[in-house]
């Protein structure tokens, strides 16, 4: 506990001091500590989430000032800047990448209301709205969607971005989105930063591209195969390829040298035939061509 933190804590009422101490002790028990955004999560749902995390991570919500004190006392000063808005503390012994993945996967879509700030671009997708022709087409056009009446219903002609991230949702937009059943928000525990064993990770670091790793695994395997085959190192995996390669080489040599081998004869005959046809293709005079090859 730093002297400065101690001083601050001294100024707090008893119950607050106790809460800060309890929080900071909790943080000290885990390898990783993070800040999660809780915006838009109803308290009932938050209880469920807390329960779902049991065994993986511990989620605590307190006043921001107390959370900041607790972070400072536990030595997580790097996280203090991330305590802003409606947030909680999360502590885990899990791999922070795995935690991020789990939290992202648990997010659910939710509608956005008038006056809220769009967390991301809001897009009306191309396609049939399923709404019968009527004034709704005007409402769509009014919010900036490329819509028209076609085949007896209202169609959106192309993906239309109707609001950019950070802008406020108007009453008209909220109505249209509601009518179309578009839920542009992702609601859930929003991991904003984690410190794991002293290293700070932000969501960009934590958002691993699983497909890229999968493709790396394939690349690594292919490279190992290439090396083993090219270095002629036999393993259960490469021996069939090596055998096939050796067979192919023998065959290639046999055909080029026209070696009189029973196995090669069918291919040699075929080769002779192919050469004859290739030569015949250069001959313009029908008269000079074998009957089989005349048009």
């Amino acid at each position, binding site marked *: 506990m730093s002297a400065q933190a101690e001083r601050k804590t001294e100024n707090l009422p008893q119950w607050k001091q106790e809460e800060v101490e309890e929080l900071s002790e909790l943080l000290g028990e885990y390898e990783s500590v993070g800040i999660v955004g809780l915006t838009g999560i109803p308290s009932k749902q938050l209880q469920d989430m807390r329960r779902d995390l049991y065994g993986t991570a511990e989620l605590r919500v307190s006043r921001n000032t107390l959370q900041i004190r607790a972070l400072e006392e536990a030595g997580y000063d790097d996280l203090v800047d991330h305590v802003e808005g409606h947030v909680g503390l999360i502590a885990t012994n899990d791999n922070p990448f795995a935690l991020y993945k789990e939290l992202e996967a648990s997010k659910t879509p939710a509608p956005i209301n008038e006056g809220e700030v769009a967390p991301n671009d809001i897009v009306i997708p191309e396609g049939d709205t399923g709404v019968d022709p009527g004034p709704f087409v005007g409402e769509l056009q009014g919010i900036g969607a490329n819509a028209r009446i076609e085949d007896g219903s209202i169609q959106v002609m192309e993906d239309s971005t109707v609001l950019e991230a950070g802008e406020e949702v108007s009453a008209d937009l909220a109505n249209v989105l509601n009518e179309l059943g578009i839920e542009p928000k992702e609601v859930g525990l929003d991991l904003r930063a984690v410190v794991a064993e002293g290293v700070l990770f932000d969501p960009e670091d934590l958002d691993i591209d699983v497909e890229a*790793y999968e493709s790396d695994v394939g690349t690594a395997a292919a490279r190992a195969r290439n090396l083993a085959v090219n270095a002629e190192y036999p393993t259960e995996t490469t021996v069939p390829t090596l055998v096939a390669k050796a067979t192919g080489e023998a065959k290639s040599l046999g055909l080029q040298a026209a070696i009189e081998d029973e196995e090669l004869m069918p291919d040699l005959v075929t080769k002779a035939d192919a050469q004859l046809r290739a030569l015949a293709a250069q001959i313009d005079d029908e008269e000079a061509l074998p009957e089989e090859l005349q048009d």
Partner: protein
Amino acid sequence: MEYVYAALILNESGEEINEDNLTDVLDAAGVDVEESRVKALVAALEDVDIDEAVSEAAAAPAAAAGAAG
């Protein structure tokens, strides 16, 4: 790719692909191990069917090698 190779050895030896085991293998190979890369790899591979990815690579060696280049 050394982290991925290490995971593939563990996959073949039947050992668990976790942070400790990966770090041991990489340490033994003289790699200056970055903990966060190990962590990310472990988390990512949780969702990858390694045997399938490996055998798919075997099916299309030419293409795979190209990518590797």
